[in-house]
């Protein structure tokens, strides 16, 4: 998949890469208050860029902070710190009313297709709400637009008069995507949009997202816990663990040559459809530690097969290792034992 979709950027690839990214996340931090004045470090100093027209995968297991990061970028939860430069404007510095004007540029597709649609609203009403938010005129043009949106996501225009409960999970997810597209956003956060669906339906929704992304020149932040799903769709990958970025870079580099022990472990556990393959087992011991009391130094050290004494002392910086590939590991230069 090309880094840039032709629809979004008429510029040649080289020139476009030099242009500022559509969204630049800088030092995003989100802390939640917990009992006894303790703090949940949900997201800690996360930085990455999303190029216009590209798809970036945000990957990590449960509790890695990937969903929190996605919601904080859209200010669905208020971030504790950092910046989100969208098209030259820091979203985090906007007042609530100024942010409202930006909302239609940034949309979200949710994980759970059942609770993401108001059960008391017909599909037409759901889409109309979004079109109202965009200031789309009413009347015949509106009805045409609703039909067009439904067709765009692979549904039929006469589905507009139905209620959400009349649809399957995959169809509901399509409605959710149509709602996000109704305001003609530039940027969409897809928060595990297929993980609640049957495997047979997952591919359809992934194809739809990939297709729409190319056709409409969308920029996607695709949140997932499954690396194989991300590989299929994403130009770049950001691997998160316990609120921090472990590794990021172009998908082909990260997948072909993962540099961080965590990414290696994740890739090793991803199922590969080959029954004859002998699994090279990379043990990932224990559970993800509590974000209330994260380990000192590198947050991954407690489960890292390569951890040394220094890992407890030094918080690794996210260092470039060439080709846009970045790794947060003090040992990335050393050959692992």
């Amino acid at each position, binding site marked *: 998949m090309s880094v840039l979709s032709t629809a979004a950027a008429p510029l040649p690839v080289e020139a476009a890469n030099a242009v500022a990214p559509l969204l630049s996340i800088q030092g995003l931090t989100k802390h939640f208050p917990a009992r006894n004045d303790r703090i949940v470090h949900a997201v800690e100093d996360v930085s990455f860029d999303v190029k216009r027209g590209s798809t970036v995968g945000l990957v990590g297991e449960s509790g890695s902070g990937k969903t929190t990061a996605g919601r904080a970028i859209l200010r669905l939860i208020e971030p504790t710190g950092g910046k989100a430069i969208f098209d030259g404007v820091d979203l985090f510095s906007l007042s609530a009313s100024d942010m409202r004007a930006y*909302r239609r540029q940034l949309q979200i597709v*949710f994980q759970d297709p*059942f*609770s*993401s649609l108001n059960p008391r609203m017909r599909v037409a009403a759901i889409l109309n709400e979004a079109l109202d938010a965009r200031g789309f005129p009413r009347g015949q043009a509106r009805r045409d637009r609703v039909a067009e949106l439904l067709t765009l996501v692979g549904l039929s225009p006469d589905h507009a008069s139905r209620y959400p409960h009349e649809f399957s999970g995959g169809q509901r997810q399509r409605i959710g995507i149509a709602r996000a597209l109704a*305001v003609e956003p530039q940027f969409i956060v897809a928060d595990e949009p297929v993980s609640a669906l049957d495997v047979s339906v997952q591919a359809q929704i992934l194809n739809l997202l990939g297709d729409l992304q190319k056709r409409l020149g969308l920029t996607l932040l695709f949140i997932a816990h499954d690396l194989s799903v991300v590989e299929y769709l994403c130009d770049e990958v950001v691997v998160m663990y316990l609120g921090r970025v472990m590794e990021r870079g172009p998908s082909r580099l990260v997948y072909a040559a993962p540099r961080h022990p965590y990414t290696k472990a994740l890739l090793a556990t991803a199922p590969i459809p080959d029954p004859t393959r002998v699994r090279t087992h990379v043990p990932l011991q224990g559970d993800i530690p509590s974000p209330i009391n994260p380990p000192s130094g590198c947050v991954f050290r407690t489960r890292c097969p390569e951890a040394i004494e220094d890992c407890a002392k030094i918080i690794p910086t996210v260092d470039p290792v060439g080709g846009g590939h970045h790794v947060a590991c003090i040992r990335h230069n050393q050959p692992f034992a």
Partner: protein
Amino acid sequence: MAAISVPVHQEPNILSRLLGRPTSAIGLAILVLIALAAILAPVIAPYAPAKLSIASRLDPPSMAHLFGTDDLGRDVFTRMLYAARTSLAVGLAVVVFASIIGIVLGLMAGFFRKLDAPVSRLIDAMMAFPDILLAIALVAALGATAVNVIIALGIVYAPRLARVVRASTLVIRELPYVEAARALGIPTPIILVRHVLRNVTSPILVQGTFIFANAILAEAGLSFLGVGISPSIPTWGTMIAVGRQYMDQAGWMMMFPGAAIVITVLALQLVGDGLRDLLDPRLAKDI
């Protein structure tokens, strides 16, 4: 699919499903009958409600006076029909008034975290008073008129609704479709009405039915105690209050209005139970 406890959209025709349950159907039929009797009172009633007849004081039930006459010779059946108008109207008005207060308080407490503690404490404080005692105190303070009885009972029953609305709002607030609306930049008041309130209608409907029943009982109680609506306006409560003085000579004066209250409240409870079972998927499965 059913694993997520989200208010699932109900079959549009809740009425036909209600009628499919024998107990609810009976309750509904009785309510319709009583409502019709109240509305058509001037047509059905054989006498004028205030027509005195000294000659036929305290007459027992007969063909001329179906439910007998009272101490002033007025037809009890006629007065009961007119009383039904007051009792039902007061009950309905209490439901509406309590709903308005209850919904506003419940939405505020449930949706806005900062308001939850103060509003919830207020609700708790109001519920700590015995219902009828609080109503008597309020009517005593405001004055014994029909409107004040409605206000007093509305205030008494609002906390129950507020609790139900708050509990549902707490759940709905966290659902992705509310988040989606926020992501679209929909203003909070519209989110509250379109996305939250619309999905709390079922518990409000159920609670409203029970409040209706309670309000009729409470209004009768207030009137019986003499702190309710002025005795010149017939309500079932005032009729019982007057009838009490002639209990040994003319039991029908109390009996029939009393039966009317029992039957109306019972019918409302049957309908309320039916609604609750139909609208609450968890209970519906056990039945």
